[in-house]
């Protein structure tokens, strides 16, 4: 009985402390609420709206008929039309489209001969996207209204499919580079989000702010070591990925280093901002998780970005991990140049500068 009494004493004290820690209390409610709404909508394994390009070398009415039939499947979203397959391939490398549908010059002849009508050029690095497009290979195609293609000649597949970058359709190829984004998000934000809070908790900060050291100097000084931590981590992940999982490295080290440093910068400064908001290390940890969860689920790591509904995409655009996911996959798997992916790159650099500025402004050298 007295034991129950003591357990209750501890429980009551714990509840009282929990209810006074506003941030923790808020997180208790907000984490399930927001995450459920977010992921309930976002997690959608049925892939739709994959951005594609169309290259029509035949210039025929048949091509337009087939294109229309592909469009109404809603699996793809036709973004652009190119004149040459070369342009389409460049767009795939740059990541603006995931696939291209190429109609050959002799389309009419092929239709008559019952051969595959056109070719899909597909970025196969994301196996979910790849599978969705492969499923289109045998879709029934009507060449004229109401007349199925089979009426002309026995069916070979409607399309040929060329899977680039990952012809064996191994998911590791896409997962390993993506994992760098998740692991860096986790460690970089976690390390720095606790950085200032720890000094405040231990009392170091009161001394530090009476010295001539400038807030920006404290901030940058704290970040520099973690840049190297991040570089070591990405080397381990990608090195092991290549050695154990045979993930192909199709890019250059220079591009890889550039996008990685941009992402490390964005994550570290975001962590620093958290550090100026959180009052305790516990709160800093919770805020980190709050960013980590959507980074895993919305960044395109687990589910294709293009298949997510609009609101989820808007949220994903705010997360540095989403931009890095595109950059690292482009640079590592498709051999893209940073210049081809400059939108995401500029976003990360801008994010870094803004976060650093906001964190520095928030961190005042007073105890007011």
């Amino acid at each position, binding site marked *: 009985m007295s034991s129950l009494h003591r357990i209750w004493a501890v429980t009551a004290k714990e509840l009282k402390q929990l209810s006074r820690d506003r941030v923790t209390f808020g997180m208790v409610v907000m984490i399930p609420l927001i995450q459920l709404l977010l992921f309930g909508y976002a997690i959608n394994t049925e892939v739709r709206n994959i951005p594609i390009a169309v290259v029509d070398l035949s210039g025929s009415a048949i091509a337009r008929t087939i294109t229309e039939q592909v469009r109404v499947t809603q699996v793809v979203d036709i973004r652009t039309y190119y004149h040459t397959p070369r342009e389409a391939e460049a767009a795939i490398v740059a990541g603006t489209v995931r696939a291209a549908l190429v109609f050959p010059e002799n389309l009419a002849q092929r239709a008559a001969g019952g051969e595959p009508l056109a070719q899909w050029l597909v970025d196969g690095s994301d196996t979910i996207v790849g599978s969705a497009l492969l499923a289109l290979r045998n879709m029934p195609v009507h060449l004229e209204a109401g007349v199925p293609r089979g009426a002309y000649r026995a069916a070979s597949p409607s399309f040929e499919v060329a899977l680039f970058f990952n012809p064996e359709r191994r998911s590791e190829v896409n997962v390993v580079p993506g994992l760098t984004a998740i692991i860096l998000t986790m460690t970089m934000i976690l390390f720095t989000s606790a950085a200032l809070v720890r000094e405040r908790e231990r*009392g170091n900060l009161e*001394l530090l702010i009476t*010295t001539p050291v400038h807030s920006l100097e404290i901030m940058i000084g704290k970040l520099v070591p973690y840049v190297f931590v991040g570089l070591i981590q990405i080397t381990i992940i990608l090195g092991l990925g290549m050695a154990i999982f045979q993930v192909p490295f199709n890019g250059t080290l220079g591009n890889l280093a550039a996008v990685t440093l941009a992402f490390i910068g964005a994550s570290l400064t975001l962590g620093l901002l958290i550090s100026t908001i959180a009052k305790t290390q516990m709160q800093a940890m919770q805020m980190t998780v709050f960013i980590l969860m959507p980074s895993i689920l919305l960044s395109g790591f687990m589910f294709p970005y293009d298949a997510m509904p609009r609101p989820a995409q808007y949220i994903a655009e705010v997360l540095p991990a989403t931009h890095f996911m595109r950059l690292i996959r482009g640079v590592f798997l498709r051999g893209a140049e940073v210049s081809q992916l400059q939108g995401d790159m500029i976003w990360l650099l801008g994010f870094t500068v803004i976060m650093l500025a906001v964190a520095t402004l928030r961190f005042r*050298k007073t105890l007011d």
Partner: protein
Amino acid sequence: MTDAAIEARGLSRHFGDIIAVDRVDLQIPRGEIYGFLGPNGSGKTTMIRMLCGLLTPTAGEVRVLDLEIPRQAEALRRKIGYMTQKFSLYDDLTVAENMRFMARIYGLQRGAAKARIQDLLERYALTSMRDRFAGDMSGGQRQRLALAVATLHQPTLLFLDEPTSAVDPENRRDFWEKLFDLSDAGTTILVSTHYMDEAERCHQLAILEHGRLRNQGSPAQLMAQLESRVVEIGGSDLRRVKEHAMGLPLVQSAAQQGLHLRILMSPDASDPLSYLREGLDDDSLSLNMARPSLEDVFVAATQEQHSS
């Protein structure tokens, strides 16, 4: 350049409804050891934080070393050393690492820093502990390290916030020897304390209570000027006598000190001894006038305010 290291007029700081410091005027001369004496919560730490620019005053003007605070706080930071109430160096760095870190923060050149650290390690008897983690040291050792670091850049003004609250009396005495050395070398020192023996060592004192400045002057002056009379009572059953005495209107306070009861009488009592003899009505008690101590000054200063 004025003679005062610190000048404050009408200095106040409110935290919501709480008034931590209430319209304090100060004039602290250069080169002196100046003490803030007051109980916990009297506003000592808030005062110090405002004087070194860490807190913005709600009202009032502050000039420290001819700089307007908090506007010119950044310029002041090179000239002051600050020892916080709580040990604020890094527990997970060694003595030497802590000192090197702070030397770099203050922008000391490599060679100069090395010589200065060597000198301080010797002066504060830390040489044998240079590779010890600060977190593993005793209270006294930590205070020496904190003082060594606070004086690293040879500041002209030193703020010490209850520097010896976690230190035994012997270490406290050693610590004060170091302060006198610094003072002789021309450093102005502002120290807060709630210990009478420590307050007695200061050149000048300000007695603070509830954020108000109650009294100001050198310890000797304060004791000499004390208008209250001090009576020492010897005898048996002093706890009962104390209760009885506290009921008398002209008794300001009564506190037992070993075998004696120390009574502080209001200045209105023209003949304290006969007043007490009459009031207590107990022939077995011995009553004697006593020399006022600093504690008496402190008690009188803080009591007056309560009765008025």
